[in-house]
């Protein structure tokens, strides 16, 4: 007798990605460059976040032709994005054999109140979070992996840093709480008491937490690992740089050896121009993807 889609199988898949880099790709050629550079997985997209930002309008699940092309091109796992709350986009991706679904604020939300009940699916999900309450709500809905939201497509690390620090700080706070305090914390943060109890007991989240949203250089990736990330997602950073293959390899190595500064210095030499970044205070309220869900 065997069981598919159990928590251990879904969360375990993310455990295997730890210490690695997951790269956004828009076609087979990019997927192969990513695999060759040592990516642990690729995220198949129609457009990278910085292009979604530039294009404006409604961003949806990628054309299945692109996802299929990527699925056939590489042997590493393939992830793909569905709109927040879009049960059908998620089912379509699951039926295509995608290995992980990102219920992502990078796409325009389909439901402004409810996220997908991810416990219903055999395929695992990753979701974004800015703080512990959001992280625990997503775990309650069945997310098997988390990532910081950061601010996608900006090449600016400040929001990812804020979100990672916030989650880490709140884990420490929760770890020191008595049960009566924890119940009030659960109420105030809209978070499951049971999941909080588990976090308090282990001193960490019950799922892997990656960094995402604004990572543009090898040093950025290493910084996020220092702050406690289990690995990193790099979206626009790689294929918007001058030399994607070199850039991708440098980010992979900086993530593995995040405390070897001499090495990171070497890796950062002659990489060409990184993606042009965006300063946060130039973004209007409607440009902030991280605020699209709670």
């Amino acid at each position, binding site marked *: *007798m065997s069981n*598919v889609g159990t928590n*251990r*199988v879904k969360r375990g*898949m993310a455990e295997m990605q*730890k210490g690695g880099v997951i790269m956004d790709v828009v076609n087979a050629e990019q997927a192969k460059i990513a695999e060759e550079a*040592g990516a642990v997985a690729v995220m198949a997209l129609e457009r990278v976040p910085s292009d979604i930002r530039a294009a404006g309008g409604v961003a949806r699940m990628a054309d299945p032709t692109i996802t299929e092309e990527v699925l056939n091109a590489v*042997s590493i796992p393939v992830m793909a994005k569905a709109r927040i709350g879009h049960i059908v986009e998620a089912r379509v991706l699951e039926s295509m*054999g995608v290995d992980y679904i990102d219920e992502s604020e990078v796409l325009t939300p389909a439901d402004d109140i409810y996220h997908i009940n991810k416990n219903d699916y055999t*395929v695992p999900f990753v979701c974004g979070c800015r703080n512990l309450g959001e992280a625990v709500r997503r775990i309650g809905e069945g997310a098997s992996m988390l990532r910081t939201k950061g601010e996608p497509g900006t090449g600016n690390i400040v929001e990812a840093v804020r979100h990672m620090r916030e989650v880490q700080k709140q884990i420490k706070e929760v770890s020191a709480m008595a049960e009566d305090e924890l119940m009030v914390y659960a109420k105030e943060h809209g978070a499951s008491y049971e999941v909080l109890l588990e976090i308090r007991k282990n001193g960490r989240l019950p799922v892997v937490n990656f960094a995402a949203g604004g990572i543009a250089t090898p040093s950025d990736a290493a910084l996020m690992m220092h702050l406690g990330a289990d690995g990193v997602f790099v979206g626009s950073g790689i294929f918007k740089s001058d030399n994607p293959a070199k850039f991708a390899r440098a980010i992979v190595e900086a993530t593995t050896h995040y405390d070897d500064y001499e090495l990171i210095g070497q890796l950062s030499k002659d990489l060409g121009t990184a993606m042009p970044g965006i300063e946060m205070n130039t973004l209007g309220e409607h440009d902030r993807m991280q605020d699209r869900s709670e």
Partner: protein
Amino acid sequence: MLTIGVLGLQGAFREHKQSVEACGHEAIIVKKKEQLTEIDGLVLPGGESTTMRRLIDKYDFFDALRQFEQSGKPIFGTCAGLILLAKKINGQADAHLKLMDMVVERNAFGRQRDSFETQLEIKGVADDFEAVFIRAPFIAEVKENTEVLATYQDKIVAAQQGQFLAAAFHPELTDDHRLMQYFIDQVKKNKLKLATN
């Protein structure tokens, strides 16, 4: 007390370290090849085999790992670790460390939605081992010198050949440390043997 190294380039190395410690031994995360001289046995963890191979090459681990093997010390590979050990990988022109006389099939049970857990009988270890298979490989062929320790639906999922132990599943994702204990027992025996030679 023994010192077991866990190759820490990428993947679930923290869980293996905890498993070694739960068995009462010291575990170190091996990130630099020089650390291989400090250990009695080595675990190659689960993760992405293509990523690990790239990092193995990048940091000159390849020859160091083969030297470690020649010293006679035991190596235990799980999932991606099993793939690294194999002499041949179906559908690929070249394999990685080529230490174990076996042919493996990658992602052999399907994609992530086909990943599963089941109870396994592992020869000499347990008859009710909770095995978690994630985009797992299986062993398609072994030679006479290799002992098959477990099968699932007639596919070989655990095997041992001399100093090498390989499992297609992830013992580190459960609290069942019996397979790790089995490996540590092999390391212990081997250490005595190396000391008397």
